[in-house]
């Protein structure tokens, strides 16, 4: 089957089996390996991407369901100069990264939250990333980083 979807603003078309998941389509066909597989049953969130702006587990979405729609992966998250954006920079500065395997999904969960709730409380941040498992960090520095990025965006918005 031929798939046509927009990934990080670029139109992508590729032949793949009709039952391929969005996760495997991104990784195996488009070789965009920033999106990780952790469980393939929608429990760990390592494969999180934004589908039309909404956070989804790409292992649970068929590539066919994403056909003609807009997908944002970790490769599409960066500052205009290609470096880290403010949320990614906060992850670096607040120690939100250890092994790094869950990190792309965590960054996307953080982006999804900040898009819908620019002033989250720490509890709201914890709720927003509760679908993303991290075995290294104990989450605290991830919460710190998202909180810092939220404040940064609020301040930038007021300028």
């Amino acid at each position, binding site marked *: 089957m031929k798939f046509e979807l927009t990934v990080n603003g670029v139109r992508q078309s590729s032949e793949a089996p009709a039952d391929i998941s969005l996760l495997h389509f991104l990784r*195996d066909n488009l*070789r965009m*390996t*920033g*999106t*990780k*597989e*952790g*469980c*393939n*049953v929608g*429990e*760990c969130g*390592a494969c999180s991407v934004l589908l039309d702006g909404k956070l989804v587990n790409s292992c649970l979405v068929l590539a066919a369901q994403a056909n003609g729609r807009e997908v944002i*992966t*970790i*490769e599409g*998250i*960066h500052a205009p100069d290609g470096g*880290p954006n403010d949320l*990614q920079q906060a*992850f*670096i*500065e*607040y*120690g939100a*990264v*250890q*092994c*790094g*395997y*869950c*990190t*792309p999904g965590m*960054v996307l969960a953080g982006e999804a939250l900040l898009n819908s709730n620019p002033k989250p409380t*720490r509890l709201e*941040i*914890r*709720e927003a*990333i*509760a*679908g*993303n*498992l*991290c*075995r*290294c*960090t*104990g*989450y*605290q*520095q*991830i*919460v710190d980083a998202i909180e810092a990025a939220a404040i940064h965006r609020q301040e930038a918005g007021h300028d």
Partner: protein
Amino acid sequence: MTEKQFIGKPTNRVDALEKVMGTARFSCDYYLPDMLVARCYRSPLPHARIKLIDSSEALKIPGVKAIITSEDFENHGRFGFPIVDMYMLAYARVRFAGDPIVAVAAEDEDSLQAALKALVVELEPLPGVFDPRNALDSDAPLIGENPRDAEGHPRGNLLIDYIVRQADPDTVLAKCDVVVDDEYTTMHQEHAYIETEGAVAVPWSGNSGVTVYAGCQSPFNARDNLVRTLGLAEEDVRVIQPYVGGAFGGKDDTMYQTIAQVAKLALVAGRPVKMVLSREESLIASYKRDAMVMKYKVGASKDGILKACKFHGIVDSGGYSAITPFTAWRSTIHAMGPYRYEACHVDTDVVYTNNGYAGAFRGFGNTEVCYAIEMAVDDIASQLHLDPMDFRLKNCLRPGDTTSHGQKLGEDVALVDCLEQVRRISDWDNRRKLYDREHQAPTSQGEFRQGIGVAALFHGMSLGAEGKDFAVGTLRINDDNTLTLTSGLTDYGNGSRTVFTLIVAETLGIHPDRIKMLRPDTNTAMNSGPTVASRATVLGGNATRVTAMRMDTLLLTAAADLLGCPIVNIHRNGEMYIGPDEEPVTYEQVVEHAREMGLVLSTIGRWNAPENHWSFESGSGKPYFAYHYGAQVAEVQVDTGTGKVEVTNIWAVHNTGTVIFPQGILGQVYGGITQGLGYALMERVDYDQGYIQTTNFDEYLIPTALDVPDITAEFVEKPFADGPFGAKNIAEPGMVPAAPAIVNAIFHATGRRIKNLPANLERVLIGKDLRKEGSNKACKLGLHQE
């Protein structure tokens, strides 16, 4: 002490940028031209004789390029450390449900699946052992390889046993005013690294050698196993560590099997081969934290002095030994907890069963016994109506004390400092009193009850008296004046690359940005033993420090020559070298001058840990050269209607010595505590007649961001004489006391001692497990389906 430039200052992890951008490559991210995919056929039975393997039909399937069994390896692919009892693919027998028997490489997933279905594997079921308590029965089926009466193995499935002997506890216990006599159990725990096991092998031209990309605890162990089991020379095998998505002790033996399987498949097929385990396969195939049965008798006098401890433990090693003998030895050494006794006996039996297999996992034997002894000690305090914090302070190890092993401790012992500090920051006395008052009112069903509990910890540093303990680092200055640093120790997220970079920067007075720390590669780094037992900071850190000091000597020699003065007259300001006439020269000038002098700007440093000694016969000695100390306090809220426990606060104080990488050490403590919280409340790998019951994260629950409170962590930075810049270790100790602090808080809230982990709803609510109906056998092993 002089002010430090980089150590202990806010620093970012050296590899954080690649990780947040999604460009860090893990094993699974390698897509090479002509690469085959591979998978294992795994045993559907927990114990069976392999009668026949016929792969002729499977080999005829288009796209199938290689099929291997134990016959394709030297000596059937036998390996293992410290006890050699495993195979790269099962030979003659399978000993757990999930044991790999055949490995297949094919062009694509469809032909791979077809081949796995077409394989003919005939197994003759054998009776198994599933309860470690029965493993040593005279009629128990033999799981290990030695006959029942073998020399040194007089009790069939006994793998090994260890003792500690100090005086005679029975005599002392008879005179104690309070004796706790109880049995505690812990269950298997899954590492649950979010990246499953994976490896990619690339054959060299003419199949003369092989390069493997794989995340594991030690690429050198992986290489040595390949040399032995593939019959290749050391120079024909290269193992490169890509980024590793978490390990926690879990990427040892299972990974060495995976690595050998892909390497052999690649050599047979003459093409690159990749194998990545699905989460289900990972849970079925990988080793776990061992389950333990622990019997304690601990006695004290009525004035609150601990007198004696008697311990008997059974460690379930499962079908293979893996590293469980070391785990069990650490359990043995730590079973009595960080306390003084008049008498102490410890006996630990390690047994084979057919419940998966056990190996290394953070805390490594201490996590298990710390849970039990900290509950026993808490129980004594409560029976004596003493505050548990006071009771621990009264009995804990102090500088100059002699342990139950006969080891005289040094001045670095800081447990009192940790307990007092955690008491202060948790507002222990006020909270304890407040909840005690609340508990005087009768509980009505559904009411919330709060409680607060403490646990103390000592944790032997590095490997201990189990073997030679050393690490090696290398450093060179490149043509562009950047520095390249290597260590044989791995960074799988623990932050050691950053720690080692900071140690070089501080030693040389060079900005960390100039230093590039390579990931381990058997061709560029030097063997330093495995990255286990929280040994990176002290062992690897010291080796790095020695390496950097040698480089410093070279640069100072050049600077002295350039400035025309003795080395002692040079002082440093940032990257400047300043001589007696105050004229500074730059790092670049010094390096250039060193080259002109013909100095080779490349150094190697090795650090040997101080001597340990242990007598396995007398059960005494100096098991570790030093210990880490710590104390944690947990506060819980228990729903008395459902048994649900919410951990509302955790305070941790650890005697880490000098903090090198602040962001990293906090991450280690937060992450460790979170794994301990999972261990306490929810994590449980159940084996039912040898069949694992939890095969993905929908059934094996680990803590989410909503299960963990904000944690407060502080450090007692009393410098440690044998550590780099005074640092001690942290990775394991952060986890170990969390579970006992939580169950002690549950006792404070409910009056119920949770003697079997995890403290799930029914155990907290009714004090026992609900009975399960029906058979759990076959349902979980969806091994060979798509």
